[in-house]
């Protein structure tokens, strides 16, 4: 890729031009992040009258706290399931589109719609569909002998938030997969067909490996999505319940900090969450830089 180089005559002009971006990053990202790190070392009473520096105290208490460890576990289950479901479903849909000739455009447009729906709306939508009293799905599940109740049964609640969160992400993944599939030359698949590979063999040995950069990128983006952006879905559908079953890390940060007013612990939690996401992102860049070359 060729980039155009511009030489500025005025020494200050380039700094002036990047200043807005820098200001936004500083004010809305670095400053709050720094505040969170600083606050995670403090303990504040509920009225905000007295603040004590306690070093790593908040972290020690968190790692001893079974509720927090449960939240870590819940997050892991939720993230992996949501990302896997969203990616696999999107790949299946993209493969279907790739085989279509005429209606592909309409189909693609329809599949992209969910992405434009606000997460909270999506959550409420699924909440209605799965509502034990008025929802259509519990009614159908009841017919096959399954008593659905996500406000009481932990597993049902988890399944519900996974479906609601994955549903939204499918559109995004789908677009990337369609683009990825279109980038694979038709002759590659034709050569494989002549080489005696059936449709399944072709998919596993040619298509999937060639899609691997896309898949890996989506995996990391999806995991980050499930860790940060699923807050509205959880809030609208289960509020973390029942009995902490869907209380993922980002939701617990909010509950402990803004509802429970335990600011120090909440800050420590957000620092840990930040560390997890940063390390995942680092892994992504390391990995992708080595892989995506052709």
């Amino acid at each position, binding site marked *: 890729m060729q980039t155009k180089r511009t030489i500025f005559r005025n020494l200050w002009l380039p700094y002036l031009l990047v200043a807005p971006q820098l200001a936004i990053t500083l004010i809305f990202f670095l400053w709050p992040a720094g505040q969170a790190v600083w606050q995670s070392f403090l303990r504040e009473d509920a009225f905000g009258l007295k603040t004590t520096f306690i070093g790593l105290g908040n972290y020690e208490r968190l790692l001893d706290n079974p509720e927090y460890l449960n939240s870590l576990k819940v997050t892991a289950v939720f993230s992996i399931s949501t990302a896997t479901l969203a990616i696999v479903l999107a790949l299946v849909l993209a493969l279907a589109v790739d085989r279509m000739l005429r209606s592909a455009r309409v189909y693609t447009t329809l599949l992209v719609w969910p992405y434009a729906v606000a997460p909270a709306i999506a959550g409420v939508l699924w909440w209605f569909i799965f509502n034990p009293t008025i929802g259509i799905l519990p009614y159908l599940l009841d017919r096959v002998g399954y008593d659905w109740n996500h406000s009481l049964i932990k597993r049902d609640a988890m399944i519900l938030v996974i479906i609601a969160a994955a549903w939204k992400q499918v559109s995004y993944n789908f677009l990337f997969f369609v683009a990825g599939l279109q980038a694979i*030359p038709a*002759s*590659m698949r*034709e*050569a*494989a*067909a*002549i*080489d*005696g*590979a059936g449709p399944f*063999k072709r998919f596993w*040995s*040619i298509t999937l*490996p*060639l899609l*691997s950069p896309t898949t890996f990128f989506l995996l990391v983006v999806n995991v980050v999505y499930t860790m940060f952006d699923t807050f509205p879905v959880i809030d609208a559908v289960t509020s973390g319940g029942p009995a902490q079953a869907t209380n993922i890390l980002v939701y617990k940060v909010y509950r402990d900090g803004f509802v429970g007013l335990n600011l120090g612990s909440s800050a420590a939690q957000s620092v840990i969450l930040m560390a997890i996401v940063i390390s995942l992102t680092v892994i992504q860049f390391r990995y992708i830089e080595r892989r995506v*070359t*052709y």
Partner: protein
Amino acid sequence: MAGITLENVGKTYAGDVAAVADVNLEINDGEFVVLVGPSGCGKSTLLRMVAGLETITEGRVTIGARVVNNLEPADRDIAMVFQNYALYPHMTVRQNLSYGLKNRRMPRDEITRRVDEAAGILEIGEYLDRKPRALSGGQRQRVAMGRAIVREPAAFLFDEPLSNLDAKLRVSMRGEIRSLQKRLGTTSVYVTHDQLEAMTLADRLVVLRGGRIEQIGAPIEVYRRPVSTFVAGFIGSPAMNLLPGTLQGGQLHVGGQSFAVEVAGNEKVEVGIRPEDLRPAKSGEPGLAVSLAYVEALGAQQLGHFRVDGHPLVAAFPPDQLVHDRMSLAFDRTILHLFSAETGKRLN
């Protein structure tokens, strides 16, 4: 080893668009046949129909003793070399070559033997553990051919395999493909739009136009007796000159000259003269009065671009020939090509 027979083969797309129509062609065992024609003449479609990558909507294709119309590409016992090589980028060269054999559940030592043999023939032995992206265009081309060779198929199908190479490599790879095919004796069908490639490679040429066969024949035969103005203009470089003339009771009038020809009839004609058949007229000899536009010196020969009666005319001269602004060009009347101006078909 097997021959390929095409009987009344046609391809019609939805909406009655005929890409290929009425193709009858018998390719003998071990023969090298080149399908040639301009873009959109249906040559690639025809090849892909033989390969099984396009459905055959009319007629019958037979490879060896089997009608293959409804067989999968894998079951047709053919191997194809693609224009963009279509090598699997995530596999090493060895894996690329073995892929088709593994899919056919060939024993591992047999695969190794065939891959090593093909690598030896194509001199790509030292690249076997590399990925395609680490290879140059010519090396990739060899790997693509290797993938066809290891299969030991009944026929090779080539879809413009040299068009992604630079000019020099194209010439040398052309020679290699030819000698390789002679050595293996495998029936080959080769698609190209490059008439030079077609002339040099083919045992037999098939010139296609608008989805139909225009002419079939040995390259030199097609060059000497093109059946239409289309073939005349397509085969041979620089292209054959076509001048308008009139035929009247055994007399041909062209470029201010008249002489007797052994063709009956009265009609407007196109007179074809190859540039290499033109030479400066000796004094007293009748010739075409031409005026010079410009000269292209190619080294081994020079091309004089003239105008005669307002029509362009190209003549190929030896490099030491003096070219004047006004000249008289003579040609051998026995090697004239006469085409009907109306149908474009050959008259003599």
